[in-house]
């Protein structure tokens, strides 16, 4: 079982306490009514689905119940790091540091 570090509880907790909540850093358009159908479709449905480093949201449902962001490698399923919701996407040097 995977152990995931919750940035709010500051502790490692088992995977069963968490739920996956899709890709992270997808900003909702400021004025949705101004969007064309195509742009709205992209916002709703189009995701990056990378092979490798993926920025994603998780929720510590059976713990503190908070949403947070995580960086996970989709090939090895290893979590690189987790960080609080609302923080900017970590830059490559931070990820390198977390990997080492």
């Amino acid at each position: 079982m995977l152990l995931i570090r919750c940035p709010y509880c500051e502790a490692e907790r088992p995977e069963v306490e968490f739920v996956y909540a899709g890709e992270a850093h997808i900003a909702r358009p400021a004025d949705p009514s101004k969007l064309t159908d195509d742009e709205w479709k992209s916002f709703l449905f189009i995701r990056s689905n990378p092979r490798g480093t993926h920025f994603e949201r998780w929720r510590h449902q059976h713990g503190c119940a908070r949403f947070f962001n995580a960086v996970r490698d989709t090939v090895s399923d290893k979590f690189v790091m987790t960080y609080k919701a609302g923080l900017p996407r970590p830059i490559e040097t931070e990820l390198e540091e977390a990997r080492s």
Partner: protein
Amino acid sequence: MLHEHHPLVGREIAVREAAPLSIRAVADCARFSLRIDPARIVEASKAFGLSLPERIGDVTVSGDRLAVRLGPDEWYLTAPLAENQAIERDFAKLYATVPHSLVDVGHSEVGIEVEGTAALLALRSGIAFDIEAIPAGTGCRTIFNKAQIVLVREAENRFRIEVWRSFADHVWGILQAVSREIAIDI
């Protein structure tokens, strides 16, 4: 006519072998779920008569009252049954100045106490993380064999489980099976 049904009441599991273990249902108490702006916990502490913990996972106890911080804006409070209404009144007064949500969850939860040198071993059967690493005097919400519980480590070898009454029989059954294994040392 409605009858209050309280599962587990008066039930106990005791192992008196090499690793003593005692599991019992604790006396019913008043329980609340409190959601409030963390910046206003000083006022909430005054209303509850116990300073609410400031770190997630921390527990404060004073007399019969206990508070666990479960999340960024969520606390789990327990108190003696007789003080139920008084606590609700005190928080209702607070509501005018500090908006919050205090929900009486006393009827939905059942408390189980697991005590003894084998307590860690018994709980490990259903909890998927290293509970040895959580220090005494802390607590968290977690999963015990698929049932959501609130776990409080009251002392080195004493744990308290708060679980929904509909899950209580399931949790009790697992603990019973585990204590049997501990009793015959397998």
